[in-house]
C-alpha cells in the first residue's frame, strides 16, 4: 500500500507499469487518472495545498478501509500538490484485486473520497483572478453512495 504526495509532474503509465509488474495472483488492476482540464481554453492553473503528514495519514485511513472492504491485494495513491498546469495529471489511483468488480469499486470509492473529503485546499488561478474551490454537489452525492451501501 503506497500513498504519496508529490510536487513534480508524473507519468500515470509509468506508475501502472510498476504497479502491475510481477502480480501473478492478482487478476484485476483498475486505475483512475485525474487530469487538470484546460476548461475550454482558459489557462487556469491549479494550486493544491496539503498538510504534510496529516494529509497522507488521513488518506491512509480511508485506503485501509478500502483495502478491507473490497478485499484488495494492494493499492497505490499518488497525488500532486503545489502548482498544476492544464493537461497535467493531478491524481493517480490503482487498485489490485482477485476480480474486477472489487478493483473497480475500490478505485471508484477512493476517488469519491479523495475528491470530496481528503485534506486538500484547492485554488484556481484563472484569467479573472484566483478563487478557492469547494467540492461540488456531485462530489458529495458520489461519496454518499458508499455510506448508503453500508446502511443496507
Amino acid at each position, binding site marked *: 500500500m503506497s500513498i504519496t504526495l508529490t510536487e513534480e509532474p508524473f507519468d500515470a503509465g509509468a506508475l501502472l507499469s510498476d504497479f502491475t509488474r510481477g502480480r501473478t495472483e492478482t487478476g484485476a488492476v483498475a486505475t483512475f487518472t*485525474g487530469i487538470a482540464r484546460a476548461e475550454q481554453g482558459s489557462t487556469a492553473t491549479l494550486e493544491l*495545498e496539503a498538510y504534510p503528514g496529516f494529509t497522507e495519514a488521513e488518506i491512509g485511513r480511508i485506503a485501509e478501509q478500502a483495502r478491507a472492504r473490497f478485499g484488495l491485494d494492494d493499492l497505490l495513491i499518488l497525488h500532486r500538490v503545489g502548482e498544476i498546469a492544464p493537461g497535467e495529471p493531478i491524481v493517480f489511483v490503482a487498485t489490485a484485486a482477485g476480480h474486477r468488480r472489487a478493483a473497480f469499486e475500490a478505485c471508484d470509492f477512493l476517488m469519491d473520497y479523495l475528491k470530496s*473529503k481528503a485534506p486538500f485546499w484547492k485554488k484556481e488561478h484563472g484569467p479573472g483572478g484566483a478563487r478557492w474551490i469547494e467540492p461540488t454537489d456531485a*462530489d458529495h452525492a458520489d461519496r454518499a453512495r458508499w455510506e448508503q451501501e453500508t446502511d443496507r
Partner: protein
Amino acid sequence: MARVLLFGPLRDLAGWRERTIEAGSLSALKAAIAAEDAALAEALDGPGVQVALDQALVRGDPKLAAGSEVAFLPPMSGG
C-alpha cells in the same frame, strides 16, 4: 510556544502560513490571535473549521504544551 499553521483561505486572510505564538491552551491561543487580528479570529471559529493538535483532530479547549503544533483546517476541498 505553539507552532500555528493556517491552510487554504485562512492563510490568505491572515497573510501568513506559520507562526509561533505563546499560549497554554487553544482558547488562550485564539485570544492572542484576536488581540491582533479580529477578522482572522472570527474566521477560525467559522463554519467547518477544524483544529488539529499535533496532527490529530481535536474538539473543545485542549491544553497546549511547549512545541505543540496547532493547525486550523478550513473546509477541505478534496483533490
